[in-house]
């Protein structure tokens, strides 16, 4: 295991030219993913979570484009060759399992095909590995010859994960992989992701809007707001001591089963996520922030103390 991070994203910027001007769904986002860790992306809908994940693997729909920054995977800058990494080095899991599975093909054949596409192995070996990857996600390898419709939603999502893992990628990007699932099945799927990190030293980027899922699953978390990184840090730290007011609000407004005895109101952040064509100047969060100062309305806060992009940290430091 080398000391350098597996993935390093520096000042990533994604732009969509439109008739009314350029929209920037990802704006100057930097982070690293260490080997064997789970990094979470959290934020409300429209925060830019999916777009950031897609940009890493070069899957931005035109006319959108990466307009700045760089993505370094395992020591090499990736650019136009991102496609070559997909599947083999970086696996992907999306929210809807049906879009990733071919309904007309047995799952064993789909797995074996993916394996042979990326690894130099024969048919028999591919089938053996396909069985092993089913086992890895807690499915009966005896069901290699089943069709997708013979599985429940949670099982299908695990097949999709098996497919993403089949070529033994170093990084898996999972975008809301459990959002459509019941909690019991969600727990199984998240368990699989944790296990592949622990057992194989693979890394995972887990995209979710659910703070509880972040708390249960990730090592570090990046909180996104309006296409920008609001806060990043070790998950337990960020949840028990969030420094950015948006992260504070997001955590305080999350209802949890731990609150059962309380009868109070939930904390609520006023307002809602701005649209891309109306991102406020300065700190994008300032119209919703109870601590907003004059400076916040004018100047965009940089990431301070490697933790949060908020002027309050500068005040505390001063």
């Amino acid at each position, binding site marked *: 295991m080398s000391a350098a991070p597996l993935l390093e994203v520096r000042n990533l910027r994604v732009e969509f030219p439109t008739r009314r001007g350029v929209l920037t769904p990802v704006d100057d986002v930097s982070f690293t993913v260490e080997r064997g860790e789970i990094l979470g992306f959290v934020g409300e809908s429209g925060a830019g979570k999916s777009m950031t994940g897609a940009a890493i693997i070069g899957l931005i729909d035109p006319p959108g484009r990466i307009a700045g920054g760089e993505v370094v995977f395992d020591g090499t800058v990736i650019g136009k060759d991102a496609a070559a990494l997909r599947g083999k080095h970086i696996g992907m899991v999306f929210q809807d399992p049906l879009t990733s599975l071919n309904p007309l093909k047995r799952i064993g054949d789909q797995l074996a095909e993916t394996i042979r596409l990326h690894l130099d192995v024969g048919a028999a070996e591919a089938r053996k590995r396909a069985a092993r990857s089913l086992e890895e996600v807690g499915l009966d390898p005896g069901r290699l010859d089943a069709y997708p419709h013979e599985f429940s939603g949670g099982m299908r999502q695990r097949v999709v994960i098996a497919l993403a893992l089949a070529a033994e990628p170093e990084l898996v990007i999972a975008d809301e992989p459990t959002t459509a699932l019941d*909690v019991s099945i*969600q727990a199984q799927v998240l368990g699989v992701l944790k296990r592949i990190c622990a057992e194989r030293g693979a890394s995972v980027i887990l995209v979710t809007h659910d703070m509880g899922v972040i708390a249960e699953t990730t090592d570090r978390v990046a909180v996104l707001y309006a296409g920008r990184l609001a806060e990043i840090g070790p998950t*337990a730290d960020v949840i028990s001591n969030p420094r950015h007011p948006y992260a504070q609000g997001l955590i305080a407004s999350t209802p949890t089963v731990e609150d*059962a*005895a309380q009868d109070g109101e939930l904390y609520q952040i006023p307002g809602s996520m701005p649209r891309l064509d109306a991102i406020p100047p300065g700190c994008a969060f300032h119209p919703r922030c109870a601590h907003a100062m004059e400076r916040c309305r004018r100047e965009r806060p940089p990431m301070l103390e490697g933790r949060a992009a908020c002027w309050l940290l500068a005040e505390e430091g001063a």
Partner: protein
Amino acid sequence: MSIVEARGLTRRFDLSDPWVVRMLTFRKKRILTAVDDVSFSIEKGTTYALVGESGSGKSTIARMAVGLLAPSAGTITIDGTNLNDPALDPATRTALRRRIQMVFQSPYASLNPRWRVGAILAEPLHAFGLAAGRETARVAELLEQVGLSETDARRFPHEFSGGQRQRISIARALASEPDFIICDEPTSALDVSVQAQVLNLLKRLQRELGLTYLFITHDLAVVATMARRIGVLQHGKLVEEQDTIALFAAPRDPYTKMLLDAAPRLHPASATGR
């Protein structure tokens, strides 16, 4: 005093092939019991939550409670009157309909996109002959009550965010001056911060108007601070029912325990997580 009473509520669906096909293929009739002998009662002015995973029968109960679907067996009564009693005279039925309203999961689907918000809110007023001659004032009052403004009456549903659309659905439910509102996953499609706004609104309205809620959700966390009492549904059966605090402190049924354990926590160190 309980206002809503479900007794032995049951709903079966016939999933069989058509009769002719069955005769040719010798396949048996297939009956799905979506709701199986469910009984509960709701105290006036409180929230009763029905919690269960997908397909457990929650929405089927909601549709029976609001009179959209007839039970195969059992009854649901509001203040002692059976909604599905065929002998009910039309005037009593209309009066009862007015008192029971529903808020759905998808605020997109449940609001007519071609109507302005003002018309959407005025419709129940006309249907039940309420606020005659002062509809505009009443619509403004309803919008205010859910935290929107009078001028929003002129706009169309698509001009609002998801959370605001859910406020409009709530305002529409309030228009007929109900005492009982069934909320079927009212915040499942919303972001947490917006969900908090809507849950707080529902709580405030309950306090101010003395409303009774049947709150349906797959998410135990959402009702932890909302409900007085919780019923847990599994495969159409009520497997456990307790006051909220007792249920979270000491779940009795293994299925409830599993649901509680699987619910993500913000501070997993205190539980079983990583």
